[in-house]
């Protein structure tokens, strides 16, 4: 499939899926179950609103979702209490698959969700979205329901605050445009069709999630995309424009840490797939600088990019889901 053809055919706008009743009919016809997963760490300010909106609109009013689950990394605020009070199933990441131990990172929650949740499709939505709306879930799930060949649907956000007419630049955030897109352009040109490869909102079929490894840190999304592309090709991807997303903005220094983690994960995947060969051992220390009056000092951040194996390789998982 050519990139332009893919962009035309596999890029959607959430407005195309406004008829949720029709969507539910199609879901029921296929006998699909759908889980919504909200990975959290201290999100008490936004979690209540997200659960209320999804539960009321996509469970009570329109039964699109079969479960809404919060997978928490050990919040010290009231995230878990609020989530449970508004009707979500709340799980501590460390309580899931205890024999596998506990690692720190969002990817850990996403990986454990594959074991804990029951859906044939899992939709991941970040828990820090201020302008939450049901479209954040149905806009990503719908392409999977209507298109059996699609397996992994990413969100992108493309609603300029002011624009008159004609051509306008469109793309992702700073890390996407400065790091990920140049890397994809060099090594996986077809993947540049994904407008926001790092967005935290995506819906994926279980058959895909159980078959790919999960870096537990910043690199999880990048790694997923490379693995899905390697196993199923570009046609497995789709992307949906969800208009606008309002969330916390990150400082440039924090983005530096993110970029470091992503770059490490990228290099490891490319080496594992034989795209790059004989890489030196990659250090896990990111060095940044800070100044005290006239004196400069180096600050070292240790950024691990540990990886969880494909879930299908775990006997506990195969037993729970009846896989041979």
């Amino acid at each position: 499939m050519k990139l332009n053809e893919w962009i035309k055919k596999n890029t959607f706008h959430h407005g195309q899926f406004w008829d949720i009743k029709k969507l539910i009919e199609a879901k029921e016809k296929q006998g699909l179950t759908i889980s919504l997963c909200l990975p959290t760490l201290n999100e008490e300010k936004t979690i209540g609103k997200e659960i209320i909106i999804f539960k009321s609109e996509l469970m009570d009013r329109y039964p699109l979702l079969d479960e809404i689950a919060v997978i928490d990394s050990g919040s010290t605020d009231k995230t878990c209490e609020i989530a449970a009070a508004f009707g979500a199933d709340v799980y501590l990441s460390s309580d899931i698959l205890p024999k596998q131990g506990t690692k720190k990172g969002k990817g850990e929650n996403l990986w454990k969700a594959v074991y804990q949740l029951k859906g044939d499709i899992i939709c991941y939505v970040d828990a820090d979205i201020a302008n939450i709306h049901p479209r954040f879930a149905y806009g990503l799930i719908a392409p999977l329901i209507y298109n059996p060949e699609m397996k992994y649907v990413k969100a992108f956000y493309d609603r300029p605050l002011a624009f008159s007419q004609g051509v306008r630049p469109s793309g992702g955030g700073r890390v996407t445009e400065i790091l990920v897109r140049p890397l994809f352009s060099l090594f996986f040109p077809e993947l540049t069709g994904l407008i926001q490869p790092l967005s935290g909102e995506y819906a994926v079929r279980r058959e895909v999630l159980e078959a790919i490894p999960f870096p537990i840190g910043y690199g999880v999304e990048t790694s997923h995309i490379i693995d899905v592309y390697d196993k199923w090709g570009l046609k497995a991807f789709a992307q949906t424009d969800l208009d606008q997303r309002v969330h916390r903005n990150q400082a440039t220094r924090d983005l530096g840490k993110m970029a470091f983690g992503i770059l490490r994960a990228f290099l490891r995947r490319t080496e594992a797939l034989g795209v790059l060969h004989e890489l030196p051992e990659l250090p896990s220390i990111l060095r940044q600088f800070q100044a005290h009056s006239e004196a400069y000092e180096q600050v070292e951040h240790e950024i691990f990019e540990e990886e969880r194996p494909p879930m299908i390789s775990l006997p506990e998982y195969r037993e729970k889901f009846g896989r041979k």
Partner: protein
Amino acid sequence: MSRAYNSIEEIIRDLPAIREVCVSLRETLLANLVMLGEIPAPTFGEEARVNFLMQRFSECGLQNTSSDECGSGFGMLPGRSRDRNILLLAHADTVFSKKRDHTVSVHADRVTGPGIADNSLGLAVLATLPTLLEKLDLQLDAGLVLMGAARSLGRGDLEGIRFFLDNNKVPIVAGLCVEGVQLGRLSYASAGMLRGEIFCRVPEEYDWIRRGTTGAILIINEVINRILGIPLPRKPQTSIVLGSVEAGAGFNIIPTEATLRFEVRSESSEIVQEIASELEDIIEDVTSQTASEVTLDIVARREVAGLEIGHPLVKQAREIMSSLSLPPHITPSISELSSMINHGIPAITLGITEGEHLHEKRETVQIEPMFTGLTQLIAVLLAIDGGFCDEAE
């Protein structure tokens, strides 16, 4: 709990069961509150919010979902009888401009955001009501007209409800106005009211030295001092609210224009009229003394109107509120209630929950009391529907 009620006592007996069902719809009510609250709806700019309300009505299967020429939104829930209808309304506009960040925050016990109490919650109750009645398995004898009233506040001057009442063909037997706060509020009378704007412009050839004053702010200050000198009677209760002053552009730029917005409220229409005359005298006097242009623009007026405290609608509402341990807080209203009463429709205003920081960015409503507020509303609705609030022939 589908049943016909033969007396107010039977309704009161069912209050705990009604409340339980209200609680079971918590997420539905809160989701409606969040989604409505995040759509800006300044007066004369309510279209998007009203459209969302009508979409909710349609999703609930309501018939005749429509909007009118004034921009108000309607949903009809037909009853068994064709000649009895109850009008249940909440004003759709808020005091916040479109530019304001309308993000709503949900906490464990409360919801915060601009306009969330006044009156996103009232509107959310309307949006939730069809689902609530369905869940309660209640089919009313009277038809229910649900109205999100546009152009209510400020210069809107109740245009939405006035247009509806002037052009409505459906027989309305009673009206219920829903306000987000405060729970326990019971309004059955409308105060006399006069809302206006005093505008002052200093002429370009103004003689700064001779007049000994520095621009429009001091002139508007003189107007304010004179207004504060108007003697206000304690009985009938009367007040003048100086709501906002706009003037000036910086530290050292002499302002040439100033605007004062105010509202006079009184239990007596005559006193409102007397104060209006005094305001005109003040304007004339200040104009002549300062050689500046001072004008008075009256943007809204209400006459005193109301039900008697012994009216069956008021009596039954008090009875229901007492049964829910809500001491009724009797307060006159200047909202849609007055229009209905002036059209001969017995009506009351009820509040849904407790709230604070009204008309501020951190406007907040409490979640738990909402279910008592909803229970009270359903019970009053049932009392009207059962004919227990009708006046004796």
